[in-house]
């Protein structure tokens, strides 16, 4: 089976000449379809930079990165945006729901951006919200929801257009243990359906056991990849 993500000798630095910060120092990584892959490591080790490159929202300097055999380097800006819209879902630590839109409207954004008619987008969004357990909150504003409920809306938004890759940045850090566990269960049961790939960046050791594999990063490098938290 073709890997979902293939990164080879990936480098990325920030800043101007003479004051460069090397965020990625030659990353080699392969993630399989249907895999829940976690990236862990201390702050500033390059985890977020790596998922930004994988998600196609940040250009890398050297090396290559292919998502489902599509070389992101070879794409024009508009083409890459379109690719992201169809194939990538995002979940953030701070949920990032648009506060003036209802849960259904927030969830329908990826569908509308992919040209799905409004009525169908609304219907599918409502269906997705029901799947993540928010059937009673279809027309609620994000500010009226708890943190866990907001993260469920964010997950519904990330899944609604059936992307093949979902990238998550600290999805449970702002949640208590029980809610974090519920969110991870949701990821395992809903997000990994249909051979979808999940890459999660986290500090939260309470959720490491949900991963199929864990990549440990340090100083811009993946130092080792383990199959279970006990090997860390």
């Amino acid at each position, binding site marked *: 089976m073709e890997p979902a993500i293939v990164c080879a000798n990936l480098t990325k630095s920030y800043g101007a000449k003479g004051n460069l910060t090397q965020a990625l120092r030659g990353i080699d990584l392969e993630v399989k379809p249907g895999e829940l892959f976690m990236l862990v490591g201390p702050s500033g080790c390059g985890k977020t930079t790596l998922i*930004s490159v994988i998600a196609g*929202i*940040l250009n890398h300097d050297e090396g290559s990165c292919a998502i489902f055999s599509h070389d992101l380097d070879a794409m024009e800006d*508009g083409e890459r945006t379109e690719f*992201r819209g169809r194939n990538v879902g*995002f979940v953030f630590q701070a949920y*990032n729901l*648009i506060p003036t839109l209802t849960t259904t*409207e927030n969830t329908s954004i990826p569908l509308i951006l992919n040209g799905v008619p409004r009525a169908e987008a609304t219907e599918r969004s409502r269906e997705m919200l029901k799947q993540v357990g928010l059937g009673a909150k279809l027309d609620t504003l994000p500010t009226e929801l708890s943190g866990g409920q907001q993260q469920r809306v964010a997950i519904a938004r990330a899944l609604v257009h059936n992307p093949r890759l979902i990238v998550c940045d600290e999805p449970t850090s702002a949640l208590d243990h029980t809610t974090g566990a519920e969110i991870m269960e949701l990821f395992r049961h809903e997000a990994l359906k249909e051979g979808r790939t999940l890459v999660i960046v986290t500090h939260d050791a309470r959720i490491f056991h949900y991963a199929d594999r864990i990549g440990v990063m340090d100083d811009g490098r993946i130092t080792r990849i383990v199959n279970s938290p006990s090997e860390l």
Partner: protein
Amino acid sequence: MYLIALKMLVGNKGKFFAMIFGVALTSLIITQQSSIFVGLMSRTVGFIFDTPLPDLWVMDPKVQFVDDIKPMQDTKLLQVRGVQGVEWAVPLYKGSIRARLANGTFQTCNVIGLDDSTLVGGPPTMLEGRVADLRLADSVIVDEAGALGKLAKPGATPQSPRTPLKVGDLLELNDNRAVVVGIARTTRTFQSQPVVYTTYSRAMRFAPRERKLLSFILAKVKPGENFTEVARRINAQTGLAAYTGPQLKGLTIRYFMKNTGIPINFGIAVGLGFLVGVAIVGQTFYSFITDNMRYLGILKAMGAKNNVLFTMIVLQTFLVGALGSGIGMGIASLTSIISKNSELAFYMPWQIPIITVLATTLITLLTTIFSLWKVIRLEPGIVFRG
């Protein structure tokens, strides 16, 4: 995405109303000040508006505007009547004469002396009495604003209300008895002085002694004759200047534009209104965009192309522009209705709303360009930053 753009805009009520307020204030200031400017300018030529019958206004060639009276000898009237192409010509007196009020105070009036036989140049609208009543002894017609205001009869004490002048009341014009025989509605004058109509011969009696008293000659051109050609003949044969009504209006307005501080003062007010609009709307919208930058970044990350984000921002700014300018012009129009027939010189011709819409469009365009610049430079990578 357009509905989402509108919800993002309207949902942030504080900023939404601040932006609408900014545009409304700008369009109100621009409309109001421009209308007052046009109103003042139209008052300078109000007398010409009120005297539409003659084809040509004949006067001393040194006259610079309609109130710049340079009297001519009465014999000039006969010369003008003799010019080929002139059907008729009548004299008109226009000058300032002091009226003495019952309490001993004086009020300067704008006295118009009409040709005794034809009464050409009389007031446009009579509210009481008839123009023909000017043929009665010592008769005068007073304008409505003057009768209700500056020429109204003072009360017994300075605090007592004044009684409006009415038909049958007496006036004392330069020590001459005058009887009010009519009240007329006229265009208000630039100096806001009462207007008193009487006959030419009576005006000669009221006016202070001067060697020459003929202010204008009003002439009608024979049918089929060219106005410009007849004016040229009048000038050639009498040495006087002859203008059509629109030409005299143009001459007067140009004089005021060139020789008074009115255009610069109102220009500054309009300019300040525009700058206030740019500052308030630009700053608020910039802050709105900055607040939404994270969400725009998320939309970009989720697949929104730049053109989609541009359209959303253009829609937002133009909605604010349309609502704001509509409210501003609405308030200005309300002022126009309320101030009708008042001291406020407010006249809003159709060109002013167009200028206001253009100005507010320019403000929203500048704001849009400024905001789009931020969006073009927006990196979707912003979404993962704390």
